[in-house]
């Protein structure tokens, strides 16, 4: 009898390992039932020719099908160093599925070290594009050295019609007094599965702004784990999740404030259309010694379809007594008053709705400092709304 003859070790392992809803942090995102077929790793990465469309002027590091194409990279700004073949963190036992997946196949692991004011003029672009069906993985280890000022755009796109599964693990370390903007732009196709994790550590006086745009994918799980371990560090996470069709997008953040006098602020705006499913889980842990922590978290959802659903779960674990911690989640529809006001000025209903929906998320985008980046993001959002609104 022939059984499992086509099954690769990856598939065998993953079938066993994928978490189900019985695991607390996957309660709303049951990976074992959502990922029915796990593909084998891509053997021969494809560049996809000129398919990758740039959105801003950045120094690009091209990563196609999980493989870094050194020969196609842009000139690196002075102060940026690449470290090829860095060591991946070991999976913490077999429990940590994402890391286990991330270690499969021929994927690349490389590091970036940023010193000085290297990327403040022109951001560094980690340009990921999937061109082949199958499993691809990337691991990046990025260090922003003391006092440096960095802007990195970490973007993920895929060729149309490619059913692929990708994992991306990024370890980001912001050292003493460094300032960084970390922008994640996810525009995968509607067949794509993306499992992503961003691990962040913040040293003393570090200041990090994370912005994340989810504007694609069939199944997306984005984890952000942060340890705020230096005093007077500040973290800002802003996110826009555009979720329509049959997509399932989960953003799960775990923030640990482990020293006194640190601040964090998380704000997510979600637009739900079609039969989209969205999840935000935000955990904030304030250690006993982390007095004067100021941590805020808000998740606002605009529900434009009766068939869409959003699940928001805040979790605060506070062991210090002198802290400010706040969280809020709202779900709203478009306001009739606003619609009437715009229409009373001659703006047609369809245009007025589009203006208001865009305004709901553009408000967050416009807090970014770079004008070209704001324009690029707003264009992606407008295009998504045109298709899914």
């Amino acid at each position, binding site marked *: 009898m022939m059984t499992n003859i086509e099954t690769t070790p990856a598939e065998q392992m993953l079938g066993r390992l994928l978490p189900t809803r019985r695991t607390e942090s996957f309660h709303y995102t049951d990976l074992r039932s959502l990922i029915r077929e796990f593909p084998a790793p891509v053997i021969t990465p494809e560049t996809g020719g000129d398919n990758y469309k740039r959105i801003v002027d950045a120094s690009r590091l091209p990563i196609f099908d999980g493989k870094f194409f050194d020969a196609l990279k842009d000139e690196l700004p002075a102060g940026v160093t690449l470290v090829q073949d860095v060591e991946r963190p070991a999976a913490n036992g077999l429990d940590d599925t994402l890391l286990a997946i991330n270690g499969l196949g021929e994927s690349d692991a490389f590091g970036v070290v940023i010193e000085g004011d290297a990327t403040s003029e022109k951001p560094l672009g980690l340009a990921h594009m999937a061109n082949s069906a199958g499993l691809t993985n990337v691991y990046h280890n990025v260090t922003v050295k003391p006092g440096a000022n960095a802007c990195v755009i970490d973007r993920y796109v895929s060729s149309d019609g490619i059913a692929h599964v990708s994992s991306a693990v990024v370890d980001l370390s912001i050292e003493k007094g460094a300032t960084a903007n970390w922008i994640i732009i996810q525009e995968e196709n509607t067949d794509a599965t993306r499992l992503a994790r961003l691990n962040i550590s913040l040293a003393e006086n570090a200041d990090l702004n994370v912005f994340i745009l989810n504007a694609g994918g069939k199944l997306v799980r984005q984890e952000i784990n942060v340890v705020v371990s230096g005093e007077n560090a500040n973290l800002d996470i802003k996110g826009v999740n555009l979720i329509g069709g049959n997509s399932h997008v989960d953003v799960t953040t775990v923030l640990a404030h482990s020293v006194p006098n640190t601040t964090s602020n998380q704000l997510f705006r979600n637009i739900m259309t079609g039969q989209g499913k969205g999840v935000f889980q935000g955990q904030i842990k304030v250690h006993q010694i982390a007095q004067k922590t100021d941590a805020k978290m808000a998740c606002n959802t605009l529900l434009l379809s009766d068939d869409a659903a959003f699940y928001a779960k805040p979790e605060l674990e506070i062991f210090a007594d002198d802290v400010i911690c706040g969280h809020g989640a709202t779900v709203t529809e478009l306001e009739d008053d606003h619609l009437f006001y715009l229409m009373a000025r*001659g703006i047609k209903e369809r*245009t*007025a709705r589009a203006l208001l929906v865009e*305004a709901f998320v553009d408000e967050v985008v416009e807090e970014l400092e770079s004008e070209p980046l704001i324009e690029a993001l707003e264009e992606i959002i407008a295009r998504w709304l045109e298709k899914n609104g």
Partner: protein
Amino acid sequence: MLEIKDLHATIADTDTEIIKGLNLTVQAGEVAAIMGPNGSGKSTLSYILAGRDDYEVTSGDILFNGESILEMDPSERASAGVFLAFQYPMEIPGVATMQFLKVAMNEQRKARGQEELKTPEFIRLVKAAAGDLDISMEMLKRPLNVGFSGGEKKRAEILQMKLLEPKLCVLDETDSGLDIDALKIVSEGVNALRSPDRATVVITHYQRLLDYIVPDSVHVLSKGKIVKTGDKELAKELEANGYANIIAAAA
């Protein structure tokens, strides 16, 4: 230009009748003031003219240049030339005022078959109109009405009115929340728009605004009907003696 004929209207959700047989005619070039006590239906009338769907017209008609506008949605009415200056302009976060003005002007131009404004022409028009109303370009970069003071909101309404060049202007309690200087600026803005081919309906509680925007006719609204019509002297009489006598006499 505007003919309201035996209009009856209810709040759509509750069927409570607010407008109960209202008749009013305003000619081109005329400024008509509608005065009345709280709860007489003044703001409701303004919303019904603009086409807000919280109200349902149960009988009667509203003719604008001879044609019924009841079947038109708010944007169609606006493009046809009806403009409502809101008593409480909505704050709309995320929509930049300049962007809003440009979209509104161009949507109306499109609806009328005119060519869309190019950006330099648009900016020139806004700058000219804003200067007269003491509105800075800084203020127009902010989201629509967000964080504007009461006076700024009212001036922004008049700015929109100037730029959109309506045929029928309906001003709902435009004087509320204005200090005397702002009242003068707003009134001058409205007066500048007076023209033989434009009608204006000024809805107000007090005579004060009518010292600056002098009406051709004054109509007293009570319990959803016009109970008395006169000239500008009627407004002064109301200011001196209150509404009670006139309403009692009309009842």
